[in-house]
């Protein structure tokens, strides 16, 4: 599974990214490249700088130092919408779904399809349901467009959240702890969803604490510790034991 590695142009390239909050150095000299169709695991203990890195890539705040290149071009995000505009989507841990709306409504939330009726623009329910059904089909998820999110399992909710990213044809999807707090069967579903994204050439960054999940789907793992990148290895060249010791600091770098 080292297909796209080192071939072609990286979809996202971070060069010397640093971030300081006052006197606190949250990130220091982080370099990461992600290629299309590649799944990269981002691991690290709490406070290692994972969330800060994700927020910088997602445009929540700009880095203090360094450069972000997307598709080879330098980009500067000041708001999340800037990152979304170039094709970076984040699937949040709490999924950011409205429970009281249907799956289709959630997929299209904020970018509803409309049809003109004279001076009025009314929602095009039928097209949105059809398109949502297609997206769930692509993801091979047992999710029906008209079901309420309230009544769904954790795996189905993930499918809805991921279908959102497919809708915008995202190039890079960052998933924040997608497998925390869901059942074993649902974890399998979510890992399957990540495979579907990969098949379609989407780059995925998986932020997770769960070693088995990272080793099941990722092509590469990046380990953060104390705001620095300590390792960046193809999954075949490392082991859960090595990653654990890198995360805890028992091993300094690899």
């Amino acid at each position, binding site marked *: *599974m080292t297909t796209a590695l080192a071939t072609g142009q990286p979809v996202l390239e971070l060069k010397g990214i640093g971030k300081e909050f006052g006197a606190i150095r949250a990130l220091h000299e982080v370099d990461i490249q992600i290629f299309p169709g590649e799944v990269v695991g981002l691991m690290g203990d709490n406070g290692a700088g994972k969330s800060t890195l994700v927020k910088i890539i997602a445009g929540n705040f700009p880095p203090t130092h360094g450069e972000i290149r997307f598709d080879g071009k330098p980009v500067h995000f000041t708001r*999340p*919408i800037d990152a*979304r505009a170039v094709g970076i989507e984040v699937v*949040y841990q*709490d*999924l*950011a*779904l*409205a*429970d*009281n*709306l249907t799956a289709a*409504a959630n997929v299209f*939330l*904020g*970018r*509803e399809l*409309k049809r003109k009726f004279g001076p*009025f*623009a*009314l*929602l095009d*329910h039928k097209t949105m349901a059809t398109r949502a059904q297609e997206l769930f*089909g692509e993801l*091979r*998820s*047992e999710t*029906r467009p008209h*079901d309420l999110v309230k*009544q769904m*399992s954790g795996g*189905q909710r993930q499918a809805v959240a991921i279908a*959102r990213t497919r809708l915008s044809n995202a190039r890079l999807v960052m998933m924040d702890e997608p497998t925390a707090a869901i059942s074993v069967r649902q974890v*399998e*579903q979510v*890992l*399957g*969803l990540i*495979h*579907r994204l990969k098949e379609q050439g989407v780059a995925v960054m998986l932020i997770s604490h769960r070693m088995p999940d990272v080793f*099941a789907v990722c092509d590469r793992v990046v380990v953060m510790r104390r705001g620095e990148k300590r390792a960046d290895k193809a999954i075949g060249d490392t082991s859960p034991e090595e990653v654990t010791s890198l995360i805890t600091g028992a091993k300094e770098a690899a």
Partner: protein
Amino acid sequence: MATPLDSPITFTNVGKARWWQSGIFASQTGYVLLALILLFVVMNFASPYFLTQGNMQNVAKNFSFIAIATLGMTLVIITGGIDLSVGSMMCFSAIITSMVMTQISTPGMPGAAWFVHLAADGKTVVANVPGLILLVSILAGLGVALIVGLINGCCIAMLGLSPFVTTLGMLSIVRGLGYVVTNGRGSFPGGPDADYFYALTSGAVFGLPAPFIYLVVLAGAMAVVLHHTSFGRHVFALGGNEKAAALTGISVVRVKIEVYVICALAAGLQGIIISGWLGSAPANMATSYELNVIAAAVIGGANLAGGVGGPLGAIVGCVLLEVIRNGLVLAQVNSYWQQALVGVIIIAAVLVDRIRSRLI
């Protein structure tokens, strides 16, 4: 790498909701409507006067007097907010409308020359353009409602104040302003356009009271807006998960301001209609009506936690309250019981919903 996901998609592990488990049948609105129909049947047997045309017109008119404001309130409640200032708003809009109407219909008052002149006999006041006075005064009443709604919305959406506190303050401010501008006295719609005003507010078309017609039109418009426009979708999303709504790029601030403006406008219109029926706009008009309006919305199924509600529920809640009041009068029960009974119904409606959602 083979995953179990390579197997074909099936829906075997996700049950399909039965028709009675979804839509209106599974909603509080649904069984409050059922209770209402039962109540109609019972009342029909209990009193021969209940289903007479006169009594039904009375009921239709009376519930329309809070139902338009309840539509606006329901919209605010769906977003997870509350507006306590509607009672004061009704009164203030009514006061402004009748004061403006009187002012610009009185020759000699500043600005009145644009609207009226004296007839040849030197006594009769004649409108320059019939209907213009009415239009201007109603726009003035709705204009102050718009401003109050904007202030409510901006405080809540932009400054992040709690809706309860903001609108509680506004309740007092607007009521106080009403007393200030009238000096505590009532104001009366007067002048050459007063007849149009009464016709529009307390008249009837084909036996249907005018307020009832406005209500049906506005409720229909609200149903379309809520379920078939992206604004309506965003209103529901805001009540379901405000953070999610913001993350998907919905302009939360704008939607919130809009719902408070619409709520204030609905209350203002409601107040103007009530003053037409009363024939005056006393400074203590519609005191504590906000509680009736909220009660009707909640009985009709609007969830104060946000995300649930609709125009049908708002109307059903108002009709239920009015039918109970009417029924108690017909049954010659001491009318003071009404208030106690309304309280019981509010709790019962919410309780039944809680029990139902645990059972299914």
